[in-house]
């Protein structure tokens, strides 16, 4: 089983510092890359060039934008609920970092190895809702408030299919247990341990997307909704709500929301990679490379989808969740449980 940072550094504080540093670095680079990538993908799809000026093919464009955002004045509009308004970007951002530290990106070294990693990630996902609400409420802006309400309703609703479509994996892993041999080592296997999930996939050579295509689809859709990506980008639907819950934010505060969104995308794709695509499992290339490759392929799919489809209406979104995804995921879960019991 992989060594954790705690094993490597010995001292918990040191491990924590290294972990946070590592995660922040990865997330920052990811955000820089993703924004550029998103602009490029949209440009390709729309037969444009995208950013071309700063750096080779505009690669440094995001850096320039970031510097611009950093230099911008942090406007605090009159009438905002100050504590909430100021805390909101951090509240949106902090859980993301915490959630990112739970993912097993490599076979040998991970940040943390917790038996209930899956639940914790969902837990941190739940935190973000509060942040969004704080932003929407604190801004004292109608569009922001409407966006926040939509966002909360959407996030809470889509958490259900998200969890329900992850549960079949937990069942599949647990069914292998209680003891399972990985590379000659018998371990007490745990269905909610992300490292175990990856290890079992790598060991059997069967990625769970093959066993659980329906769950994969639901999970992917739910992640799209959780990260407020089109066609579920209703909380920030620019044609309706201007910019949704972060309408009133400027400068780096706005940057943090952006940061959180792209980090969320990365975490969602990474989680999907772990659950359905075998995590770091892959030939020739080292594990982390595979891991990020898969995650970025999923991110590419997200962008592709965003730049292809129109947006759903809010009630349609909810109907889709409660009327289609949740029943389907329940049926899928039941069928999986059934088959595991039978086979």
């Amino acid at each position, binding site marked *: 089983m992989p060594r954790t940072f705690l094993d490597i550094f010995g001292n918990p504080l040191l491990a924590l510092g290294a972990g946070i540093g590592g995660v922040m670095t990865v997330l920052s680079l990811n955000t820089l890359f993703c924004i550029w990538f998103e602009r490029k993908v949209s*440009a390709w*799809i729309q037969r444009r060039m995208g950013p071309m000026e700063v750096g080779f093919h505009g690669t440094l464009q995001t850096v320039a934008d970031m510097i611009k955002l950093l230099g911008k004045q942090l406007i605090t509009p009159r009438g905002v609920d100050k504590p909430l308004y100021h805390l909101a970007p951090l509240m949106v951002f902090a859980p993301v970092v915490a959630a990112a530290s739970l993912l097993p990106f490599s076979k040998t070294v991970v940040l943390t190895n917790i038996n209930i990693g899956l639940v914790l990630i969902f837990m941190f996902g739940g935190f973000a809702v509060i942040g969004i609400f704080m932003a929407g409420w604190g801004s004292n802006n109608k569009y922001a408030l409407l966006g926040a309400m939509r966002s909360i309703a959407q996030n809470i609703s889509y958490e259900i299919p998200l969890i329900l479509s992850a549960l079949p994996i937990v069942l599949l892993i647990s069914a292998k247990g209680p003891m399972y041999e990985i590379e000659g080592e018998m371990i007490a296997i745990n269905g909610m341990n992300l490292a175990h999930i990856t290890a079992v996939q790598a060991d059997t050579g069967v990625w769970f997307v093959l066993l659980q295509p329906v769950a994969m689809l639901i999970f992917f859709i739910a992640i799209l909704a959780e990260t407020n990506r089109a066609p579920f980008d209703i909380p920030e639907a620019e044609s309706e709500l201007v910019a949704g819950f972060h309408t009133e934010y400027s400068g780096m505060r706005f940057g943090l929301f952006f940061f959180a969104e792209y980090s969320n995308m990365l975490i969602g794709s990474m989680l999907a990679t772990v659950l359905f695509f075998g995590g770091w499992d892959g030939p020739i290339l080292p594990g982390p490379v595979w891991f990020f490759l898969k995650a970025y392929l999923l991110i590419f799919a997200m962008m592709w989808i965003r730049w292809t489809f129109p947006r759903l209406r809010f009630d349609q979104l909810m109907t889709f969740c409660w009327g289609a995804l949740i029943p389907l995921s329940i049926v899928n879960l039941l069928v999986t449980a059934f088959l595991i019991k039978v086979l």
Partner: protein
Amino acid sequence: MSYFTTIAGGLKSLVTGLGITARQMRRKPVTLTYPHVKPELSEAYRSLISLVQFEELETHDCIACMQCVKICPSFCIEIDGGRVEGIKRMRASKFEVDFALCSMCGLCIDVCPTDTLEYTKLYDEAGYEREWVYDLLDPFRDFEDEFVERQRVSDAREAAEKAAKRAAAAEAKAATEKEPEVDP
């Protein structure tokens, strides 16, 4: 049954959409990288107006007839001018256009009796003040005296020719008029 056909149809439409965008992704971009590449303007491109430099005159041919001033819907042309000492032709002494007002409709060009107005090929001109007055005569000022001189010469020659002609004609006429007198 329709339930499943609906779902399948919906999914198919989504996949089709993705396929289309994927196909477009492989095509070349259609944009022009503007500051690096200049756009090609069409022949008829309507832009700021300027005065034509006629080959034979070596200058413009504005006769200050005020047609364009009258027809301009933006009231942005100001012309002064009149008879220049010594030549027959009317000449504009002031031709100013406030391009902040001009709407490039082209009516002045249509209406110009001497066809001395034309469009420039400037597409990225911009004014920075409320009044953005161009003196269209500016490029021609230096030639004006020369032209007037030339014109005077040619006018004089013309006048002389004309006078000669007229004289000849008068003679002829007189001759023809006289003849009957002689005749009877």
